[in-house]
C-alpha cells in the first residue's frame, strides 16, 4: 500500500510532570516520536509506562494534575505546546480524534449514538446534520455493524460492547481526521469480539489513509495493527522498530522479557482414580431474582490438587457459577457437593469449617481489599477468625503468609492497600485466601487486570502454592494463554451452558466444539499476519458475535462433544 511520507506528528524530547504528594514528579522523561501520514504506531508498555499520557499529549492535552513541562509537539506544522487553548480545541475532534478504552463509559448514555456521532461535523460546520447522518450510516456499514441504517438511532446501553467500540471508531472518523489515537480500544473486550473491532479498525484506517497511534499492553494485538512499534518503560523509550523486526529480533532485554512472557508451562495432572471429587457441581440452574436463567444445567467436578479452568466470554455464566459454589447465589435447582457431602446452598447456613474450605480471589484487587485496613489485619483476620490465633502466634502466622507470597513481612506488615502496586495487592488477596487454610480456591479473573509480567508472577506463585499446599483451583478466565499455562482440565461455557469439558490436552487438539474452536482461533498470535490469515480463512463475517450466533445446535461437531 502506498503511503505518502510527509511527517504528520513530530514529538521531540517530550517531558510531562504529574502532581503527587505536593510535588511535581516526572512521568514522561524525554520521549521522541515521529509519525507519518497513514502510518500506524503501536505504543506498548506496562501500566504506568506513560502510554496514555503520550497519547493525550499528541492532542496537546495534559490531563488534570499533569503538565507538559518541556519538549515540543508539532502537528502538521503547528506547535501544540505554545498554541492557544482555542486553537488546540479546534484540532480535537476534527483533525485529531480519540477512541477511549471503554466505549461504554465514554458515550453519553442520554443521547443516541448518531447524535453523538454527528456532533463534531455539525459543530465544526463541515457537514449539514442530514449529510452527517448519511455519512455516519455509511461508516457504520464500512465497519460492518449489523443494521447500519438503524443502529445509530439506539442508545448506548442498547448496543453490545464490541459494537459500541466500533461505533466509537466510526465517530472518531466522522470528520475524517488526519490522526486517531486509540487508547486500548479492545482491552475491555472478549477475544471473540476483539477480532471484529481489530478488523474494523484496521480496514478503516487503511481506507482513509489515516495515521494512528495505537496504545495497548497486548503485544499480539499491536503486532496486527501497527507498522512500527515503540516500547515504553517508566516514561522512557526502550526501543522503536518496524513491527516485523521488533517481533523477530528485539534488541533490549526489557523487550525480550515482554516477548518471553507466554512461556510459562506446567505439567498437566490427571484425575486421581477412585476418589470423590473435592467439589462437584451437579446440574445447577441459577438465576438472579426471577430473571432469565443465567446457568442452565451446569455440571463439572474439581479434584483435589488440580486446576480447572472455566473459560467463556463475558456473560457466559462463569462468575455466576463461582457465586453458586460460594453460596452467594443459592441455585434454583441442583446442588454443590464437597467431598461427596452436599454444601448448604446459602453461605449463611454453612458452618465455619465449610466456609473455610472454599476461598475466593477476586479480579479487582483494588475493590477486594479494604483500603482503610492494614495488611496485617487483612491477612491476620481469617487466621484469627477460623483458627483463633492471637498475639505472637497470629503475628508469626501473618509473617509466614507474607513469606509465602514473596513479600517481605517487615516491610509490608503495617502498610495499607493503596500503598501497594497492583501485583502486590493481588498477592495480598491470595494471602488472605491462604490464611484460612482452604482446600479449594476460586480465582475469578485474577490476572486480567494486571500487566503481563506481573500476571506471570502471580500465575507462578499460584502454581507453587498448589504444589506446596495441594490446593484445588477453579480458575475463571477468558484468556486462553493463561489456560494453556496452568490448567489441568478445561470447562468451556457459553450462554450459561457447559459446551465442552475435558482434560486440557484434549481441549487444545481438534475436533472442537464450534464455540471452542471460535474461542481458540480468536486468540491473537504474535505473527503480524495472523489477523489477515484468519480473516481470509473464516471470512470477515464469520468472526466474533456473528460467528457465535451462527453455531447451530444440530451441528455434527456439537453432537460429538456434548457430554
Amino acid at each position, binding site marked *: 500500500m502506498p503511503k505518502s511520507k510527509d511527517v504528520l506528528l513530530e514529538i521531540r524530547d517530550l517531558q510531562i510532570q504529574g502532581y503527587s504528594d505536593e510535588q511535581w514528579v516526572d512521568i514522561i522523561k524525554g520521549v521522541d516520536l515521529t509519525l507519518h501520514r497513514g502510518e500506524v504506531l503501536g505504543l506498548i508498555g506496562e501500566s504506568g509506562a506513560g502510554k496514555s499520557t503520550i497519547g493525550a499529549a499528541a492532542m496537546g492535552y495534559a490531563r488534570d494534575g499533569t503538565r507538559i513541562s518541556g519538549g515540543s509537539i508539532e502537528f502538521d506544522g503547528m506547535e501544540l505546546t505554545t498554541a492557544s487553548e482555542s486553537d488546540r480545541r479546534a484540532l480535537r475532534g476534527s483533525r485529531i480524534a480519540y477512541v477511549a478504552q471503554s466505549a461504554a463509559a465514554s458515550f453519553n448514555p442520554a443521547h443516541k449514538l448518531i447524535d453523538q456521532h454527528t456532533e463534531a461535523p455539525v459543530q465544526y460546520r463541515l457537514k449539514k446534520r442530514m449529510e452527517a447522518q448519511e455519512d455516519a450510516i455509511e461508516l457504520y456499514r464500512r465497519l460492518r455493524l449489523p443494521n447500519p441504517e438503524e443502529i445509530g438511532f439506539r442508545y448506548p446501553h442498547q448496543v453490545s460492547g464490541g459494537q459500541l467500540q466500533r461505533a466509537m471508531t466510526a465517530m472518531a472518523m466522522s470528520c475524517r481526521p488526519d490522526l486517531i489515537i486509540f487508547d486500548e480500544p479492545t482491552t475491555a473486550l472478549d477475544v471473540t469480539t476483539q477480532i471484529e473491532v481489530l478488523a474494523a479498525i484496521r480496514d478503516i484506517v487503511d481506507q482513509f489513509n489515516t495515521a494512528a497511534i495505537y496504545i495497548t499492553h497486548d503485544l499480539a494485538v499491536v503486532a496486527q495493527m501497527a507498522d512500527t512499534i515503540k516500547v515504553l518503560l517508566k516514561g522512557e523509550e526502550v526501543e522503536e522498530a518496524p513491527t516485523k523486526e521488533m517481533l523477530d529480533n528485539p534488541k533490549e532485554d526489557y523487550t525480550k522479557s515482554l516477548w518471553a512472557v507466554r512461556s510459562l508451562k506446567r505439567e498437566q495432572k490427571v484425575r486421581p482414580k477412585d476418589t470423590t471429587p473435592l467439589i462437584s457441581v451437579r446440574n445447577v440452574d441459577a438465576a438472579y431474582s426471577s430473571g432469565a436463567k443465567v446457568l442452565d444445567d451446569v455440571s463439572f467436578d474439581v479434584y483435589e490438587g488440580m486446576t480447572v479452568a472455566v473459560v467463556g466470554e463475558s456473560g457466559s455464566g462463569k462468575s455466576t457459577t463461582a457465586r453458586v459454589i460460594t453460596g452467594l447465589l443459592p441455585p434454583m435447582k441442583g446442588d454443590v457437593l464437597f467431598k461427596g457431602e452436599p454444601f448448604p446452598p446459602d453461605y449463611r447456613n454453612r458452618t465455619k469449617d465449610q466456609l473455610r474450605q472454599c476461598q*475466593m480471589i477476586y479480579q479487582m484487587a483494588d475493590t477486594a481489599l479494604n483500603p482503610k485496613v492494614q495488611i496485617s489485619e487483612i491477612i491476620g483476620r481469617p487466621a484469627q477468625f477460623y483458627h483463633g490465633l492471637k498475639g505472637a502466634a497470629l503475628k508469626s502466622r501473618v509473617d509466614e503468609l507474607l513469606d509465602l507470597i514473596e513479600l517481605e513481612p517487615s516491610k509490608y506488615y503495617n502498610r495499607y492497600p493503596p500503598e501497594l502496586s497492583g501485583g502486590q495487592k493481588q498477592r495480598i488477596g491470595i494471602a488472605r485466601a491462604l490464611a484460612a487454610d482452604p482446600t479449594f480456591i476460586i480465582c475469578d479473573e485474577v490476572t486480567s487486570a494486571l500487566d503481563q509480567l506481573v500476571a506471570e508472577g502471580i500465575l507462578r506463585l499460584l502454581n507453587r502454592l498448589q504444589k506446596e499446599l495441594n490446593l484445588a483451583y477453579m480458575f475463571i478466565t477468558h484468556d486462553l494463554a493463561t489456560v494453556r499455562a496452568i490448567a489441568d482440565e478445561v470447562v468451556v461455557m457459553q450462554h450459561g451452558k457447559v459446551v465442552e469439558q475435558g482434560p486440557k490436552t484434549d481441549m487444545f487438539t481438534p475436533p472442537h466444539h464450534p464455540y471452542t474452536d471460535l474461542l481458540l482461533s480468536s486468540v491473537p498470535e504474535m505473527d503480524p499476519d495472523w489477523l489477515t490469515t484468519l480473516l481470509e480463512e473464516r471470512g470477515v463475517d464469520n468472526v466474533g458475535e456473528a460467528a457465535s450466533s451462527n453455531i447451530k445446535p444440530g451441528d455434527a461437531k456439537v453432537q460429538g462433544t456434548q457430554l
Partner: protein
Amino acid sequence: MSIFVIGYYTLLLAASCLAAYFNKRTWFLLVFSLTLVSFILGIVGGASMLRGVAIAAGMLALSAMVAYAFREFLIAIASNDMAKELRTAPLTAAFGMFVIFTYAIAGIFAPWIAPFGEAEVISTAFAAPDGDMLLGADQLGRDMFSRIIYGARNTVALALAGTVMAFLLGALAGLLAATTGGWFDQVLGRTSDVIMSIPSLIFALLMLSIFGGALANSTTSFWLMFGFAMVTGLLVVVAKAENNVLSWLVGLAILVGVSAAFSLGMLTIFNPSEVILILVVGVIYSPRVFRLTRAVAGNVVVMDYIEAAKLRGEGKWYLIRREILPNSTAPLIAEFGLEFCFVFLLVAGLSFLGLGIQPPTADWGSMVRENATLISFGDITPLIPAAAIALLTVAVNFVVDWMLHRSSGLKD
C-alpha cells in the same frame, strides 16, 4: 492631611512597589487593590472612613496571621500523619480551628474566666460598658461578658450533646440498614421519612410543649432518655447478637444497665428541661444522619471486600465496625460539623422563642431576645451574642468545608 493619611498611603504604596519589584503577583494585586479602594473611599468619606478601612484591613491581616501561626503550631505539635493532613488546611480552616479552640477554652474554664456569676445582678439595667463590665450590663443588670462566657458553655454543650445523640442513633441505624437490607431497611427508611416530613421547628415546638419547659421533671426526663438510649442500644444488640436466645438475653440485660447509667449520667450534667431539649434535637436530626450514612454505607457494602468478609462468616457488627465504618468516616465527620451548626441554630432559635434553655441560665439565643429592645436605641449589646453564634457557625463551616473538600477527593 493628617499624618495618619500620609503614613497609610506611603505604607501601602511602598508595599505594592516592593511586591511588584519582587514579582509577587498575588501580593501585588492584593495590596494595590487595597490602595485603590482606600483611595476612593478616602475621597468619598474622608479621613474617618479611611481609618475604618485601615482597621478592617488590619483585622483581616491579623486573623490571617493568627490562623497561619495557629496552623504552624498545630503542625509542630502533631504527629507525622496528622501534620501531613494539617498542611493541606487552608487559612480559613485554620482560622476556624482557632475560633473553635477559643470557644472550647471559654466554655471549659468559664467559672475562672468570667469575672461575675451568670445570674449575678451587679449593676443597673442596660448599664454602659466600663472598667468592670467589658460589654456593659443586660436588662437585669447582669454582666454581659460573663454571660457570654457562660453561654459558650451552656449553648455549645447542649448543641454538641444533641448532635452526638442524633449521630449515635442515625449513624447506627443507617449502617445497620445498609448491611441488613430488606424489610428492616424499609421500616427504618419509612420511619425517617415520616419524621422528616414534619417541619423541624414545628415538630420541636410540639414536642417541647408536650414534655418540655415547665412540665419537665427528672422522672419524665429520665424515662425519655432511657427510651432513647434503649432504641439506640437495641440497634447495637441487633447487629451484635448471634442467632441464639442466650446472646439476645445477655445483650438486652447489658443494654438495660448501660441505658439506665447513661440516663442518670445525663441528668447529673444537664437539668431535666435541657435533657428534653437534647432528645428533641436527637430525634429531629437523626433521620438526616440516617439517610447520609445509609447512602455512604450503601456504596461500601457492594465492594468485594465486604463480600469476602461475609463469605468468611463475619457477623454484622464486625462488618460495620471494621469494614464499613473506616470507609465512611470522612463524610460522616463533615456531616457532623454541618449538623452541629444547624442544631446550634435550632437551639438558639428555640431559646429566642422562649422554649429552649430556661432562665436564668445564660444562653446566647435568649440573650438576643432579652436585649432585643436595646437595638432601637442604637446599642450593639444584643448583637454581641448574635455575633458569637455567627462566628462559631462560620468557624465550624470553615473547618467542615476543608474536610468535605478532602473527603470528596478533589485536588485543586
